[in-house]
């Protein structure tokens, strides 16, 4: 769980930052916590002496920033041109069906979240999905279930045993 105190070390790194430090700070905070909480945004506003409405406006403009925690495994489906031509729409549909969530959402058990990305720059390997930084190339709807199950197994492995 993120606490407000966690933002301080990051803000200290940007002690002399002006407005141009805003996006790097937001990126660093999200890197740390997985998302941008309200408390974090308010603290950033105080540090940079910026109105919170402006920070919220900047954060909601960009695809990268999330305001809710991600799943343990975050699946990004590439919907770039090459991937589209090679059938990524069907791959996305398969992901939605398998996880029963829409892009931008997280499964109820917190295991998976889904995101659509405009293009990941791996067009030679289309269609591409990326799970927690790990690329999977030439994905088809059939392969989607198998890929998800592999990660589901990892979730079960890491689950604490009470």
């Amino acid at each position, binding site marked *: 769980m993120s606490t407000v105190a966690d933002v301080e070390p990051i803000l200290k790194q940007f002690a002399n930052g002006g407005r141009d430090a805003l996006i790097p700070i937001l990126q660093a905070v999200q890197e740390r916590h997985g998302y941008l909480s*309200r408390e974090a*945004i*308010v603290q950033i*506003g105080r540090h940079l002496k910026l*109105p*919170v*409405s*402006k*920070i*919220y*406006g900047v954060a*909601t*403009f960009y695809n990268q920033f999330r305001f809710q925690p991600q799943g343990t495994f975050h699946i990004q489906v590439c919907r770039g041109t090459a991937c589209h031509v090679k059938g990524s729409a069907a791959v996305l549909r398969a992901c939605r069906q398998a996880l029963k969530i829409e892009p931008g959402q997280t499964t109820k058990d917190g295991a998976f979240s889904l995101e659509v990305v405009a293009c990941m720059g791996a067009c030679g390997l289309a269609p591409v999905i990326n799970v927690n930084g790990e690329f999977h190339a030439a994905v088809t709807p059939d392969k989607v279930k198998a890929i998800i199950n592999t990660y589901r197994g990892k979730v079960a492995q890491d689950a604490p045993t009470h």
Partner: protein
Amino acid sequence: MITIEVNNRRIEAKRGEMLLSALRRAGITVPTLCHMEHLFPSGACRMCVVEVEGQRNLVPSCAFPVVEGMKVQTHSPRAVRARKTIIELLLASHPDDCLYCVRNGNCQLQTLAGELGVRERSYTGEKNNYKIDTSSASIVRDPAKCILCGRCVRVCEEVQGVSAIDFINRGSRARVGTAFDQGLNVSSCVNCGQCVLVCPTGALREQSHIKKVLDALADPNRYVVVQHAPSVSVTLAEEFGMKPGVDICGVMTSALRALGFRRVFDTAFSADLTIMEEASELAARIAHGGILPMMTSCSPGWIKFVEEFYPDFIGNLSTCKSPQQMLGAVIKSYFAEREKIDPARLFSVSIMPCTAKKFEAERPEMLAHGEPDIDAVLTTRELAQMIRMKGLDLHALPPDTADTPFGRRSTAGKLFGASGGVMEAALRTAYYLLTGKDMENPKIQALRGFQGIKETRIRIGELDIGAAVVSGLGNARKLLDAIRAGRNDLHFIEVMTCPGGCIAGGGQPYGTDLDAVRERMQALHRIDRDEPVRFSHRNEDVERLYADFLGKPLSEKSHHLLHTRYAPREVVV
């Protein structure tokens, strides 16, 4: 000066200016939606596009500097078609709501659709389903009608320095919202309503109290009284096609009676009352080493601003209530007693050029015995609406005067409507309180006019008083920051939330016509020049109120009824 060619005609232009201002000076009207005078061009709406020879695409005239010899066509078929398409695109996302909309007949989008001859729904498609935000006491936001021109965001940020709203999201999902997209009431919004003035559509409007007032007027058990602010009488005429700067106070009083108000009072009276209390308070602070500089407290937007952004200055604020609230308090005590009316029956209405007054009236400190002192606040626009509803013809009504015991007013009280007016009135009475004499020349020119920050030093007896007048909260920030940084040569500061003063308040007629505001200001100055009673302390009705009821300024009764307190606000700023 350089020469350019527009529509095959040669016109003059200033070197380095934008094409749009040259066109306007030459009397050529090019429509705009996102343009704001004196602010850097946004280039968002593309309505002002014109054809410039040598440029491949159409060019936004608001953001294109003039070049010697340039050839421009402002209304070529290509330009007109572009403008029409843009309006059609806006209409495609807009609710088909004109007949039910608060801006029916007074909407820039509607006007442009008419001018450009839009006759069919060319582009039908999905509309955004945004919910209306009615959480605020003063302002209602209707994002479905927003065309994203950005003027509200800019005025809140660049003029007022509050930045309660900004754009959220991106593309066709973009909309205007507060931090975390919460209701306006929990944001840092100070209710000044400048956003309402600049909005070209019905996306922003005041919380309407018309129904409340009409219901009360129709209720035989209610005794409805009304007060009107100094700015209203010099502005109301504009809502009925008359030229700006005409004071129709007498006619307005008749109209108010015709609407059914049992008593019509003048807030300028309680402005005089405020001066008595405030000048006395200032004298006391100076004499006993109280917190200085003292700052005026009649502008509720300013008060909320201090509570949110500069809570360290709460002690500087005068403890005086605003004229609206002072009058509200004495109506439900002194007037009720005198007329033997049960205060619970009284329904007290005020007509204000201001939207923040609606918020002020609901502040917990402004209640007595659980009931608000002011039950409803109508803006100048709302009053005009009611007059139209009742079919009253302002040209035909005979002038009338306000009622005792709160009808008489000095010109000092009337000056409250313009930036610098409160300070002038206060200094005139402070002078009297400290020297026992009236000022020879009561007009203080240095405090008049449109400048955002005005200062003067005035000698009162042995004292050298530093006085500053600020309008527009962005300017207030500058002065407060300077004081935080150590400036300490000021005794008294007047702050009005709206640039130019209440005459440019959020409840005034839509738009930001600076010429009209100037006319209103000059009307107030003319009244001060021409009428005999020019000092608040010479207001006989005020004297009687003290003699009969309050005792003297800063007495215990005065403190109880006419003074208030403030506290820091926990909002996301």
